[in-house]
């Protein structure tokens, strides 16, 4: 993250040195785009924050653990799809889950859906892509994540 901020600052300065007018136009354009999406973004964040509070670690372990069997994959896919947890929370959480007996393959379904499927951000995605495309993309990514998890499971069970 820091690297991207520094990179952006450096690029903006270089751009400014080469062409003042163009740089101001570009930065202004970017900020206008940001303001335009801000209300939708804020509302999505509000909803996510509230849901995240309702789903505790205990609940996750119960649904994703060894006792859950094959259902663990489905739970992992569904929980991963509806929640949007930033990486700096998700990975420590995943390593806790691992220690409590959640398998690597279940975790890979969880992480893949977490990153690629965003049911709660569909309103945001729809603003850019249209509702239908957003839903199809999420559905396909969901299927893709299940396949990734299944292959990981096969590898972990038979090859490692």
């Amino acid at each position: 993250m820091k690297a991207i901020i520094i990179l952006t600052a450096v690029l903006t300065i270089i751009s400014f040195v080469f062409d003042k007018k163009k740089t101001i136009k570009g930065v202004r354009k970017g900020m206008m785009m940001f303001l335009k999406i801000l209300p939708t973004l804020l509302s999505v964040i509000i909803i996510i924050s509230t849901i995240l509070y309702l789903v505790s670690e205990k609940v996750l372990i119960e649904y994703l653990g060894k006792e859950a069997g094959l259902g663990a994959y489905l739970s992992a896919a569904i929980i991963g799809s509806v929640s949007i947890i930033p990486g700096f929370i998700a990975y420590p959480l995943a390593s806790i889950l691992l220690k409590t007996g959640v398998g690597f393959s279940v975790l890979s379904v969880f992480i893949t859906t977490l990153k690629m499927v965003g049911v709660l951000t569909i309103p945001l995605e729809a603003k850019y892509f249209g509702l239908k495309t957003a839903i199809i993309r999420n559905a396909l990514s969901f299927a893709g994540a299940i396949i990734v998890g299944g292959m990981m499971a096969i590898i972990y069970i038979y090859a490692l």
Partner: protein
Amino acid sequence: MKKLFKKYKFAIPVIIAFAIFAAYSYYAHYLPGISIIENNFWSFIKEMIFALPVMFILVGLFDVWVSKERVQKHIGETSGIKGVVLIMLLAFLQAGPLYAAFPVAYILWKKGTSAQNIFIYLSSASIAKIPMLAFEIGFLGIQFSLLRIMISIPIFVLVGIIMGKYFNRNNCEIKNG
């Protein structure tokens, strides 16, 4: 004002309701409310305040500096496998959550990137952001990360190709938020 409400008919009521809820939580010391605000809401806002404006500035600069011809040539409809590799490398540098990639997708589309490559961009940015990768390896080990990435890439390139075909057949377009 009315126009604004119409445009954000989903967002504005949610924001107003949350503002009232927040005010009430602090006024009445409603602990679940305070926890939602201070632990969850605030951590997202922090992430957003740093990640997003930076992404948008990059998008704006990209818009004024990079020509459509150049983008089309390298990652457009006829760019082939080279275009796929290039878009994936670009995606690995992306920062922030999935929704930070949407404005980038818009500007890439406006400049003539093929739909297929845009969907590959979205997936690749989620598969292996370089800054996040270090984090993942630290917590889950390099074996897990490498396996996950190597399996994910072909599957999500396929998803990108399917999405691209669907997108072109239905003459879809990507709008500016």
